């Protein structure tokens, strides 16, 4: 099968088989010229993944699914999005959200529930949808604050 060799700033040179290329039918907002990405593991069993651009070596988003952090995340996929991606059943849908990891305090990482990435698992076509009027926000903490340290401990 055809594979792509790409240079990445974070992972060095990697080889990606065609079957794993995610094609964005609409670019991620703010990155208009970038259409191809690949998902990479962060660490075995980690709920965090990297969404590495195949066209921009420096660009990789941290992504996750909020449910893996026990964050309730139910929404109705807008009909237009389902049609755009050719989605006909829930099993075909993969939802990922972009994670913002503060440089100085990674524990404070948040995720964007307002603008999830929707992937068709079979065609691997994807887009970022904006869930207008959903009540979700762009900065939902993923980790609960650590328990307070007992006084005098």
């Amino acid at each position, binding site marked *: 099968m055809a594979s792509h060799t790409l240079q990445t*700033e*974070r992972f060095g040179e990697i080889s990606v*088989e065609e079957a*794993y290329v*995610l094609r964005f039918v*609409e670019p*991620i*907002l*703010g*990155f208009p010229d970038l259409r191809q990405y*690949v*998902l*990479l593991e*962060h660490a075995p*069993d*980690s*709920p*965090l*993944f990297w969404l590495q651009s195949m066209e921009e070596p*420096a660009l*990789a*988003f*941290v992504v996750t*699914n*909020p*449910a*893996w*952090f*026990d964050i*309730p*995340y*139910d*929404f109705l996929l807008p009909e*237009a999005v389902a*049609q*755009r991606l050719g989605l006909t059943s*829930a099993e075909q*849908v*993969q*939802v990922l959200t*972009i*994670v*913002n*990891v*503060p*440089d100085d305090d*990674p524990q404070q*990482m948040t995720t*964007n529930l*307002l*603008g999830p990435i929707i*992937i068709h*698992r079979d065609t*691997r076509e994807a887009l*970022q949808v*904006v869930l*207008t009027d959903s009540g979700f926000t*762009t*900065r939902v903490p993923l*980790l609960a604050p650590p328990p307070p340290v007992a006084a005098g401990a």
Partner: protein
Amino acid sequence: MLVLSRRPGQRLIIAGDIEITVLEVRGDLVKLGIHAPKSIPVYREEVYQEILEANRQAAGPATPSLPVVGSPSAVDAPVAVRPADLGRLFPKSGA
């Protein structure tokens, strides 16, 4: 900027396939109806900017160190799948 005046019920046609109708004007609120091809996303500007900003910020630091977090718990929500189910979407490291 092109400036046009329209009354309720009147429309604008953009590029032949985008149709914007002024539905109602009440005080300082204007209600618009928009018909556009599905390939043309329409956003409220402030929501668009918010997502844009969140995306840019998330792409920001060159090498954030990720916190170590445990295995995700099993969930039954329809939109949720476990990382194992992602297997078809990404190459296993070391494979």
